[in-house]
């Protein structure tokens, strides 16, 4: 059963009960009133009859009158005031009666002690009020009665009862209908809210409930919408993460399959082919290369994955960082015939020393690879200043169409050259992960044929927009 139905039923039940009780009380009161009035009328009639009869007999009758005279005088006097319902009784004799009911049988004269007594009686279908009183005429007790037919009054009371029941029922029914209607209307925003919740549950995360008015339901709808927006954001975030992970896993799979394919083919050759010693050695060397390559790839991947956790940072002087980088990068650069120049403002950086060194070495290595082998002017400049680590080269530069992708895992602008230089396609992805872990931003500007500048901006909040958004492309000094 729905809430609005329950509430409606409850309200209707209360309404019917109240109406029934009130109607009942009113009905009883009204019936009492009309019956009282009828009784009053009867009493007045009786009083008038009794008083007139008593006065007249007292006026005309003498105590010396013989019984026969007294009887006829009494009858004369009574008949003067009597009407159809009047009855006069003397002892056991009914002196005057004009209708069939003998009131003395119902209300005996002995019971009449002072004043007027009224007795309601039923005579077949008829309802009667019998009023009786005792009058002494010349020392003899007489019973004076008035029989009044009050069937009409009772009938009116019954009709009134029917009317009351009818009106009460109609009122209660009307009230119940109105309550149901109003409850239903009141519950409509809740139903709309439920419908919205179902749609969201069904995957329509953009769905919102309508907020109207200022009652609690409207407040609930507003809160519901806030929740729905939070859910939608979270779902979008999760989907984005899943998409990136899928791409990443696709990349990893591809990178693993190529060396595996090569190793599988060479292993099978070694196992089944008629190879001479030199061919065997070459195949084994290939397999060894691929193993080392997979080992390196695994290490890099592991680093990339563990970087997602919190990293410890410490205060590192710019000069110390430069020395670290020089120690690691110089052998690589020298082997390629590339010179390394460094400069710093002598400041301090709050970084993870190992990771930041690894990032700077990777950038310097990339910069060195931007030169063709044997370039006599090949140089890489490393500068640490104002919380910014800058690596600059004047090598071949990065094609503009490649620039947006260089941080994507396994992206290589020039695949064959990168592979020959031992690149995994993960270096810059790892670099970006390191920068992200520091809350830093990496910014790359490059002009093909002129060189590339990469800056790691560690204190984002202190730079003005000009430095971040529109750095000039690196050109020869």
């Amino acid at each position, binding site marked *: 059963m729905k809430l609005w139905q329950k509430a409606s039923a409850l309200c209707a039940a209360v309404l019917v009960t109240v109406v029934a009780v009130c109607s009942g009380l009113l009905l009883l009161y009204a019936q009492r009133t009309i019956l009282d009035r009828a009784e009053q009328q009867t009493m007045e009639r009786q009083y008038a009859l009794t008083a007139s009869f008593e006065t007249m007999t007292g006026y005309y009758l003498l105590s010396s009158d013989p019984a026969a005279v007294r009887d006829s005088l009494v009858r004369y006097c009574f008949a003067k005031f009597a009407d159809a319902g009047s009855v006069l009784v003397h002892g056991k004799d009914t002196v005057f009666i004009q209708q069939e009911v003998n009131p003395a049988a119902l209300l005996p004269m002995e019971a009449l002690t002072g004043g007027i007594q009224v007795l309601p009686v039923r005579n077949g279908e008829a309802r009667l009020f019998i009023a009786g009183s005792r009058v002494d005429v010349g020392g003899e007790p007489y019973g004076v009665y008035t029989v009044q037919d009050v069937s009409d009054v009772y009938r009116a009371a019954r009709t009134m009862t029917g009317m009351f029941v009818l009106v009460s029922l109609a009122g209660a029914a009307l009230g119940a209908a109105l309550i149901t209607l109003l409850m239903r209307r009141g519950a409509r925003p809740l139903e709309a809210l439920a419908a919205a919740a179902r749609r969201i549950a069904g995957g329509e995360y953009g769905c919102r409930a309508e907020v109207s008015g200022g009652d609690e339901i409207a407040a609930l709808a507003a809160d519901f919408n806030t929740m729905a927006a939070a859910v939608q954001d979270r779902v979008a975030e999760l989907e984005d993460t899943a998409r990136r992970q899928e791409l990443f896993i*696709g990349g990893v*799979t*591809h990178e693993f*399959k*190529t*060396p*595996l*394919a*090569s*190793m*599988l*083919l*060479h292993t*099978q*050759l070694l*196992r*089944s*082919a*008629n*190879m*001479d010693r030199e*061919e065997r050695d*070459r*195949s084994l060397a*290939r397999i060894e*290369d*691929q193993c080392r390559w997979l080992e390196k790839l695994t290490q890099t991947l592991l680093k990339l994955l563990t970087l997602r956790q919190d990293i410890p940072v410490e205060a590192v002087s710019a000069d110390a960082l430069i020395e670290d980088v020089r120690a690691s990068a110089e052998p690589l650069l020298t082997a390629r015939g590339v010179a390394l120049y460094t400069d710093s403002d002598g400041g301090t950086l709050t970084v993870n020393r190992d990771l930041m060194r690894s990032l700077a070495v990777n950038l310097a290595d990339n910069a060195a690879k931007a030169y063709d082998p044997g370039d006599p002017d090949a140089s890489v400049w490393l500068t640490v200043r104002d919380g910014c680590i800058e690596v600059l080269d004047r090598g071949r530069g990065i094609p503009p169409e490649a620039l947006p992708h260089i941080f994507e895992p396994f992206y290589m602008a*020039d*695949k*064959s*050259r990168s*592979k020959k230089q031992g690149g995994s396609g993960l270096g810059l992805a790892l670099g970006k992960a390191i920068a992200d872990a520091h809350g830093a931003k990496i910014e790359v500007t490059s002009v093909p044929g002129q060189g590339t500048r990469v800056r790691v901006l560690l204190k984002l909040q202190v730079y003005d927009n000009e430095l971040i958004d529109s750095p000039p492309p690196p050109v020869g000094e």
Partner: protein
Amino acid sequence: MKNRILVVEDDEGIASAVALNLQFVGYDYALFDDGRKAAESLEEDHAYDLALLDIMLPGMDGFELFGYMERYSIPVIYMTAKTDSASEIKGLRDGAEDYIVKPFDTLTLMVRIEKVLRRTGRLNTVYRVRDVELNSETRAVTKGGEPVELQPLEFDVLLLLLKYKNLTVTREQFLSEIWGYDFVGETRAIDMKIAGLRKKLDLGDAIKSIPKRGYRLEER
């Protein structure tokens, strides 16, 4: 006349292994590590029976390179690490003959090459070792120009050895390809056919026993 195969693959390890395989079993081949260079070379020399193309190539990708192969009616088998069905469907819809996913094994590659060559009517049906010649169409075998009578099973064993010249043919391979999968009998049957071949064709030292594996027809 040997079948000639164009191989375009930028991974040196895979390229060298495929090249060695082709060379062992008796195919001629040309090797390129760059799509553009391969495409440009076709202008001068396009006498290939088949092309094995990687998809992700420097210079020009395999799908683009396919257009050049079509121009010279060279059937194509893609070799790629791309496993998503979208690129597989694209490769085949464009008209490639087959698609082989890395990592693959030698036998798969050889079987697919042979099937494509046979389907396109380019398969060289004459195999040679020393002075022995076998024609797989006519089922004729000659030694020094003179016809030699072989039992049907001997012929099949010799053909298999020739198809995988310089590669070991395992007992399982013999059984599944010649005797059929149902055969559960003695592998002695293989040894008997080999003995017959060695005697009739004087290939005693060329057909080498590989202990515990099978036999290998050697000729370098």
